[in-house]
């Protein structure tokens, strides 16, 4: 069990851990932004935007993440888009997770009675104001629990990036394997690290849920 603390292993493990955090955090940010925009598209009065949102969700929610990584890592360079492996990983993860965020937001928006938006519009509020000040704040409460599932899944999904040249947490397993450590011990530590991340994410969401419950 003590392998983590010998032979410079901790530094290797720690860097993998940091990469996973970094990759997940940046992807989470872009996924939120993207998901928000897509959800706004899906409820907007403009048919082209609605179709775009629907199309995006269909494609990215139904494609296996590994396939998406293949698409990004091998197809984009052919179109002369050359970026770091890390950036490619962020793109794949955000596009994928953004589709889920969009759907959670949209179903949350649908829990808010239509009359709320009608009242806002009849007072002269625009689409953005109506969505931002009336609908989304009321959708937030029903949105948080499914949103927390998405962002607990994200760090775990980010492990796929390991197979595409991003030295994240899960990929450190290969290095330990080459050093001849028993796989069970390696996996124990890696699992523990993912658990720590998941715990932190769900704790953050619990705090948010509590705060929303008070503010009413």
């Amino acid at each position, binding site marked *: 069990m003590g392998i983590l603390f010998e032979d410079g292993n901790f530094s290797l493990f720690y860097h993998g851990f940091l990469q996973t955090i970094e990759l997940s955090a940046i992807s989470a940010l872009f996924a939120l932004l993207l998901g928000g925009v897509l959800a706004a598209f899906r409820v907007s009065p403009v048919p082209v935007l609605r179709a775009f949102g629907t199309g995006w969700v269909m494609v990215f929610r139904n494609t296996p993440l590994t396939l998406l990584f293949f698409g990004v890592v091998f197809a984009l360079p052919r179109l002369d888009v050359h970026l770091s492996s890390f950036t490619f990983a962020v793109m794949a993860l955000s596009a994928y997770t953004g589709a889920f965020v969009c759907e959670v937001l949209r179903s949350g928006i649908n829990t808010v009675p239509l009359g709320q938006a009608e009242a806002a519009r009849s007072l002269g509020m*625009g689409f953005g*104001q109506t969505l931002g000040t009336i609908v989304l704040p009321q959708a937030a409460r029903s949105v948080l629990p499914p949103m927390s599932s998405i962002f607990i899944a994200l760090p775990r999904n980010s492990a796929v990036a390991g197979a595409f040249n991003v030295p994240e947490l899960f990929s450190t397993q290969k290095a330990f394997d080459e050093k001849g450590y028993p796989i069970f011990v390696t996996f124990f530590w890696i699992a523990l690290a993912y658990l720590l991340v998941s715990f932190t994410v769900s704790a953050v969401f619990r705090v948010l849920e509590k705060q929303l419950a008070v503010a009413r």
Partner: protein
Amino acid sequence: MTEETVSDTASDAVATGPLVSLKGVDKHYGALHVLQDINLEIARGEVVVLIGPSGSGKSTLCRTINRLETIDSGSIAIDGRPLPAEGKELARLRADVGMVFQSFNLFAHKTVLENVVLAQVKVRKVPRAQAEATARELLERVGVGAQADKYPAQLSGGQQQRVAIARALAMKPKVMLFDEPTSALDPEMVNEVLEVMRSLAAEGMTMVVVTHEMGFARSAANRVLFMADGRIVEENTPDAFFTAPRSDRAKDFLSKILTH
């Protein structure tokens, strides 16, 4: 406050012509022809009551006036200006047309005061302190001043509807649309809302009211429009309409609502 509203309406009344005008308005819901060749002019300060059987298109007509529903053909103008397409223009125009819904539709996550303040600040860009002062005056006037810091769910239906009226009035609208404002209320609360509406009418507010409250129509309306199957079948003064309806549809309808 009372005087202020009156003078506001009065200063706008420099313009001439009808305040609301619908010409040849048609609308379909799929195969259903829900509005059929509607022609209607509403003068400044006029109070028009829309009455008719369920499904005749009253709500739809009301909602086309601020373009919550689009129309297939015809034209609608408010204060001489045709309704613009969806966008900033339309939003500006909607701010001039107050709407009160059957189900109140107060913003559930905002306090009563905030409900009345919000659009003043967001849409009219009124400074916050001034918006709050206006809101408190209006809430006082509709008799719910003491509830300002509560959330809508903590109020009775009648109180909520009065807040909704205050919220619409805060925009200083040129015309107010009411779609069955008392239908969702317990009987003992109907009057407190009608009372507010009567005082608005008396102050010269232009109003379109969908309601089956005949007492209100008789005491406050200048004109009653009877709708059936998407058409305006009959229009008359309240007294003439209720005592001597001309069309069979109206006679039939009145006999039904008068029996209970």
